[in-house]
């Protein structure tokens, strides 16, 4: 595949369902998985609501895309970061969020959950360290 591997960071700042941003971001991440790049996701502000567990959209007639987040580890997504301040100001803790398992098919390395709650300074660092940022 491509010779140069870049670090891609997808920044998600919108709540799911009220607007199309969350779903569109997820689509782009899944499409991007075909290109063998290093992909990380960051959830900030209302974006943290995308990861809440137990979403049931039967009452609103929309597709429930939250199960897709749980499979991101199978789509080359290596890191998922959640801003601690954004979680706390919304009355949430990591227990409210879905778990995303990850496995390296070649080395057999496994992680039960790659969702990591980080402080604002780390958010800044991850943005700084990435080569390309897509913000939704």
């Amino acid at each position, binding site marked *: 595949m491509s010779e140069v591997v870049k670090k891609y960071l997808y920044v998600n700042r*919108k*709540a*799911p*369902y*009220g*607007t199309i941003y969350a779903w569109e971001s997820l689509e782009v991440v899944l499409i991007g998985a075909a290109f063998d790049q290093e992909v990380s996701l960051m959830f900030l*502000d*209302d974006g943290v*609501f995308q990861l*809440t*567990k*137990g*979403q*049931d*959209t*039967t*009452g*609103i007639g*929309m597709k*429930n895309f*939250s199960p897709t987040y749980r499979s991101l580890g199978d789509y080359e997504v290596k890191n998922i970061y959640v801003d601690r301040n954004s979680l706390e*100001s*919304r*009355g949430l803790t990591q227990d*409210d969020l879905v778990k995303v398992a990850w496995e390296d098919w070649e080395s057999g390395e496994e992680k039960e959950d790659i969702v990591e709650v980080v402080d604002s300074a780390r958010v800044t660092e991850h943005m700084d360290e990435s080569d390309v940022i897509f913000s939704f």
Partner: protein
Amino acid sequence: MSILHTVNKSPFERNSLESCLKFAQGGSSVLLIEDGIYAALKGTSAEGQVKAALDNLSVYVLGPDLAARGFHQERVIEGVEVVDYAAFVDLAAENDKVHAWL
């Protein structure tokens, strides 16, 4: 003239709820729908605003929109009533008009 106010924006992203609560006449009804439901949750930075509003307004939240986003009654601020679509229709019919804050 009684008014049903609907708010469909997250209180953390827009000031729709803040403006609605500021201008709503005492005794009016406020229904939180779509991303507006996040204002009904306990323990958020918007909780104080909603609790204060309960002193002179009736506040409702649409159950199907709560469930879609992974939340239920037990996470909702005391005094905010969870309603279904039928109750939404009743509220709209009971009031003289509906003000949809976007």
